[in-house]
């Protein structure tokens, strides 16, 4: 007799744990032929707000890790991904994507992770400066993470969120990711990778939700410092920018092209520049 497969319950990833949505709602993820793949948690505003609390609490710890340590943890994420490659290939294929494409997606994701891991202890030196002021002061500027960053990933790739998220956390920020509605299973399985990579709880929180339900709540939340968004929808972007003015939130829009090139740009654009002065003299 054929063995019955044990199916996975896809939940949310908040504060290093896998809770169901407090709302009790779900979304049906179906394959191309209409067969149910999984019931996906449909995160609510409350789930999002809980994620912000988790991210804020994690910020002090994560931003104060040495850059070298952050690099090691992100490298570890790549190791975990590599080990679970076949699982991700299957999950991507279950959505009707070819094996060839699925393999390319996961390989690129792993290699991108290594690329970003290497930046952790290097970007500071390409953006900081000692400033030659005309008074008797030692004056220097360096980059610091913005804080809690909301990530909205509408782009057309199962691992698009990962590219945004890694650059954000490499710089010491904490993130709340709203996964692309089309690939929620990939995002949630990825959170299992995060959970086994020594990433402190709360640094990354991943929510699956109905498209358009959470972005406005992210934009209006007073304890979110910035939003990183990859979308082709100008109207959505405008609405987020408008609502973000409530606390002068930074809105960083990433185009499809920018998403697919290797660069430290997004690490740098989620940093603040701090300048410190001290008198020189005896």
């Amino acid at each position, binding site marked *: 007799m054929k063995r019955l497969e044990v199916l996975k319950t896809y939940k949310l990833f908040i504060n290093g744990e896998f809770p169901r949505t407090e709302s009790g709602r779900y979304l049906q993820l179906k394959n191309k032929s209409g067969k149910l793949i999984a019931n996906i948690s449909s995160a609510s505003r409350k789930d999002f707000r809980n994620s912000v609390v988790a991210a804020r609490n994690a910020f002090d710890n994560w931003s104060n890790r040495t850059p070298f340590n952050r690099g090691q943890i992100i490298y570890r994420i790549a190791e975990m991904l590599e080990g679970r490659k076949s699982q991700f290939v299957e999950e991507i294929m279950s959505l009707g994507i070819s094996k060839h494409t699925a393999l390319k997606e996961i390989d690129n994701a792993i290699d991108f992770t290594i690329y970003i891991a290497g930046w952790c202890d290097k970007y500071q030196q390409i953006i900081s400066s000692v400033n030659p002021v005309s*008074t008797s002061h030692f004056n220097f500027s360096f980059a610091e993470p913005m804080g809690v960053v909301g990530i909205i990933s509408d782009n057309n790739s199962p691992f698009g969120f990962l590219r945004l998220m890694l650059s954000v956390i490499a710089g010491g920020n904490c993130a709340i990711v709203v996964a692309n509605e089309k690939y929620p299973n990939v995002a949630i399985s990825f959170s299992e990778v995060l959970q086994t990579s020594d990433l402190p709880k709360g640094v990354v929180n991943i929510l699956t939700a109905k498209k358009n339900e959470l972005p406005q709540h992210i934009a209006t939340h007073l304890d979110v410092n910035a939003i990183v968004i990859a979308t082709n929808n100008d109207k959505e972007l405008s609405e987020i920018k408008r609502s973000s003015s409530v606390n*002068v939130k930074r809105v960083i829009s990433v185009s499809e092209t920018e998403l697919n090139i290797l660069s430290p740009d997004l690490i740098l654009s989620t940093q603040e520049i701090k300048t410190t002065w001290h008198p020189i003299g005896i």
Partner: protein
Amino acid sequence: MPKSIKFKTNWDYSPAPESTSHIRLKKKYELFINGKFILPIENKYFETINPANEEVIAEVALASKKDIDKAVQSAKNAYEKVWSKISPQEKGKYIFRIARMIQERAREFAVVESLNGGKPIRESRDIDIPLAANHFFYYAGWADKLKYAFPNKSPKSIGVCGQIIPWNFPLLMAAWKIAPALACGNTVVLKPAETTPLTAMLLAEIIQESELPDGVVNIVNGGGETGAEIVKHKNVDKIAFTGSTEVGKIIQTIIADTNKKLTLELGGKAAQIVFDDAPIDQAVEGIINGIFFNQGHVCCAGSRLYVQESIYEIFIRKLIDRMETLIVGNPLDKNTDIGAINSKPQLDKINYYLKIGQTEGAEIFQTNCAIPKKGYWCKPTLFLHTSQSHRIIQEEIFGPVLAVQTFRTIDEAIEKANNTPYGLSAGIWTDKGSKIFHLAKKLRAGVIWANTFNKFDPSSPFGGYKESGFGREGGIHGLTSYLNL
């Protein structure tokens, strides 16, 4: 309480007024558009006054929507047809020229700045004007070196920059905006603040004399409505705004459905943290400079003081003694420490907060100094026994008003310092280096002054965290605000 020094003596200073005989001001100022001074289409003018005696200095053209359209059009033409075709080095040479011409007329600018804005001549002469000239000089040199600032990138200009500046450092803010914009290859429509248009109009004269191509810089005057027309104009590619957080948020909202780039330099509520191991007299000087510099009309003013409990009594006594020596009065007198409040509405706002502070239960202290009968004035003010939830702790007053609290541990100081929506600057006073570095990291603010305060330099990036705005002005980082990378 140790005995205080008595200041009721006859040791008055003799007046030392700066001469105004050499300044050349017109009775009427027009709009500076496309290299010429032109009449406003609706022929409306407003009066600009001296806040120290409420006398009218000149009339200034009020730019209407049609005038803004003309100014933007002129900037667009200049961008497309002239400025973008001039080599980077030649662009730099124009900017160097402007820097030099400001230096040549520095004293005149200083006097006009003090006349129109109410700030002490010592400050306009030694800080505002030299820094403005230096800012042009600094960015002039960047014009032909941009590719070295951004390796692996091809930096490109943005286009027409709409720049709206405040009244607290009129010429300096104009320099902060115009210099990097031009060096990065953009053209400009600048709107000075309604109460302080004059030094910008003198700058327009210099721009004309420097032979900068027509339309590269356009200067138009008016209030909020004029500013809104610039923000909304479809041919403006970038907005740079310095002013209140309230207006900054409105601008962010207005341009949300456009691709306009934006930098905001907004309000602040800086904490000054004084530890028991700080050199006390030096710290007192720093606190005084932090809040009373430019009448406290400074976005990065150190308006909250946190003193470690063990030195509270002696520190406050010394602070009050020092406050009593401050001279409030004629901005043009070289002895003056605190000049006139910039405008009647600003004075009303300060007085409103003085009332609120007392209603909320804080104890007010004001010095015994004499203040002139005419004009707008506010005595140096201290609020003691404040608490973190008080509005005078949370909200920006923008006047010579310092609110004091105490702390016991370093963690408490950090928690309190970071506990406002703002994050522009902070001050640290301690003799211990490791403590400075610890705090410099923990304080969520864009500028940290350690054992010093209110220092500025063209090469030093300035700008805030959180609701104090985004983007940096000054230094290599200031270039990013005016380039597409």
